[in-house]
């Protein structure tokens, strides 16, 4: 089972960054948009809005093997990212995700494909987490104030506890270093969460890279690779791949 569910803040950007920075070219990496609030990647990566996860779910009852259907309806963006798009609007997206949990996701989980599932920031965390071998909880510091960030950290702890009930390795990814250093947050998590955290990773708060992932032009691929987000994502994926190879559960 090679589903990495990404939940929390900035999940879509994080998923694309992780997919782009995945350290082994031979790995088959696909981003699965499963955000109940709706899909964005088709617009970000300039591909047609359809087919979507809903299209795949609707095709699940046909005679064609579902794996082939999934493969044929996976978007291949010019940016090099392969992804399964969610419907843009929230209601059809939620319906598609609910259906996909019992059809598409098990098919993906049983394949050798590494699935980076963007499950969004909704709480409780979506049902796809049940199929995940690793859950990445992303916390992005807003940098507004220590008091405001303390409140958000409480919610981070709550989210970690929610996902910790599933049989998956837990990775906490912190974006940004202001107002708290990542190691402070790591200490906080370790001292307040009973569940085991397999790894703590840090992602750079890099608005330019995030904008490029969203479709901004004017930054070359070579320059993007040198920007902080992609460099930190490379380090993070390296660590996550080790977790996949040596689960700590």
């Amino acid at each position: 089972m090679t589903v990495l569910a990404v939940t929390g803040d900035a999940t879509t950007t994080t998923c694309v960054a992780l997919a782009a920075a995945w350290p082994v070219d031979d790995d088959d990496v696909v981003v699965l948009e499963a955000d109940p609030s709706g899909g964005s990647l088709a617009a970000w990566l300039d591909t047609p809005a359809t087919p979507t996860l809903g299209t795949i779910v609707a095709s699940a009852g046909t005679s064609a093997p579902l794996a082939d259907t999934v493969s044929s309806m996976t978007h291949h963006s010019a940016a090099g990212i392969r992804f399964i798009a969610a419907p843009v609007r929230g209601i059809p997206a939620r319906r598609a995700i609910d259906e996909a949990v019992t059809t598409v996701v098990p098919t993906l989980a049983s394949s050798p494909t590494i699935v980076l599932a963007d499950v969004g920031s909704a709480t409780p965390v979506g049902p796809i987490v049940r199929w995940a071998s690793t859950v990445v909880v992303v916390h992005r510091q807003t940098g507004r104030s220590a008091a405001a960030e303390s409140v958000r950290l409480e919610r981070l702890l709550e989210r970690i506890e929610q996902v910790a009930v599933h049989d998956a390795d837990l990775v906490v990814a912190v974006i940004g270093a202001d107002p708290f250093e990542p190691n402070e947050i790591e200490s906080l998590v370790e001292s307040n969460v009973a569940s085991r955290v397999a790894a703590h990773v840090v992602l750079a708060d890099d608005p330019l890279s995030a904008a490029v992932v969203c479709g901004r032009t004017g930054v070359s691929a070579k320059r993007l690779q040198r920007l902080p987000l992609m460099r930190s994502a490379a380090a993070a994926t390296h660590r996550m791949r080790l977790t996949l190879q040596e689960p700590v559960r």
Partner: protein
Amino acid sequence: MTDTRSRSTSTVAATPVTDSVPGRGFRPPSRHRNRIALGALLAAVAIGGNAWVYSDLDDASAVIQVVRDVPAGAQITADMLRTTDVDADSTVNLVPGERLDALIGRYAKVRLVSGSLITAETLQDVPLVRPGGAIVAIQVAEGTLPIGLRERVPVLLVVGGSTDEEAPTTVTGRVVGLPTATTSGLGVESLSVEVELVDAPRIAAADDVRVVLVEPSEDPATAISTTSEDPEP
């Protein structure tokens, strides 16, 4: 919780990941390189076109200019002329600058005013005083010269006739030098006239000479010059 924390957790900082980790890569949307190339090409064409048009407009060529006043008949010396660049239509009668040396030693047919451009017809190869001729300076009262008097125009010089006993006589001549600004306190002007050599003493000795402007005629000096000039203007 203590038990949990006793298990080792790892962070990225503890993982030696080098900068050389390339990842799968993300190819951002292109910068429309074709459009950039097309724009650069159009800019280059526009710049080249403008350069061509303006270089074509700047069609100046060297011609010969007079740098100081040269009276008619004077022999041209190097300090009288220079070359200058002008953008003139090809139909304008000018002497190319490369012919400057060829003009040295020739003679001015007419007065050449400082700053004017030389034309081939204003110079000749021989002196203005032809064989058998002479230049006589006569003094005339200010205001007695006829209107329209110019260098190389024919004139009739009337000598005598101021008394009843003396009949006036006439001598034909050709003006070679006009009076400059009057400097005499007596109110007279000096006029240089080319006459036949035999008439020169009588004109020079006369006290009262009047000048009559007559019908223009062919200038013998110019005729000689025309036949002796090289065909190139």
